[in-house]
């Protein structure tokens, strides 16, 4: 069965510092990995995804993520955090042997402090 873990409930980082939000996954087949962000009172906004190819994926708002097959990880990163990046971040996975739905991680709340 598919599963996603986000080991940190909360990540705090100072504005201007690099940030990392961690995600590990378990799938039966080849993984398709996604990051979504949820701002207060808003829906889930797509940030980026890994399907195949280059392990480093670049997405919206300066975010990027690195797919590491041996560690089954897909950590979200940004070189310089902004206060406006403060939100709830969800990692999600699908695999090529399973259905159409996403399996989401529990979410990580990112707080960027001025």
């Amino acid at each position: 069965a598919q599963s996603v873990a986000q080991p940190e409930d909360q990540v705090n980082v100072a504005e201007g510092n690099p940030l990392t939000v961690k995600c590990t996954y378990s799938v039966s087949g080849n993984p398709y990995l996604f990051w979504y962000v949820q701002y207060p009172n808003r829906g889930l906004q797509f940030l980026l995804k890994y399907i195949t190819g280059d392990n480093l994926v670049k997405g919206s708002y300066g975010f990027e993520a690195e797919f590491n097959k041996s560690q089954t990880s897909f950590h979200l990163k940004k070189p310089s955090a902004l206060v406006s990046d403060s939100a709830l971040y969800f990692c999600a996975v699908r695999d090529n042997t399973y259905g159409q739905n996403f399996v989401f991680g529990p979410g990580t709340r990112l707080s960027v402090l001025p």
Partner: protein
Amino acid sequence: EPEVTQTPSHQVTQMGQEVILRCVPISNHLYFYWYRQILGQKVEFLVSFYNNEISEKSEIFDDQFSVERPDGSNFTLKIRSTKLEDSAMYFCASSTQGAQGETQYFGPGTRLLVL
């Protein structure tokens, strides 16, 4: 940029009542989904819909739930007899295709409170 929209944003209902949550997917999308997020918990898949029929559903999506595309634009989730545990945020999503690598675009959600 096209967006998925949902109405209402908030709904309060009494236990046992029927509710209908409405969604307008992105216009050229063919696959539609409902997810829910109980407060403090992860987002969970309910159902996917394509070509006017359910293509997948989870264990959560039991007989009290139904989905419909009543016209060319709306996609609805009906809960026939609400229970306290149905209180959650319900998200609609859509995608152009149902492929595993396809991005799903989510609406802002409907917060349902069952009293």
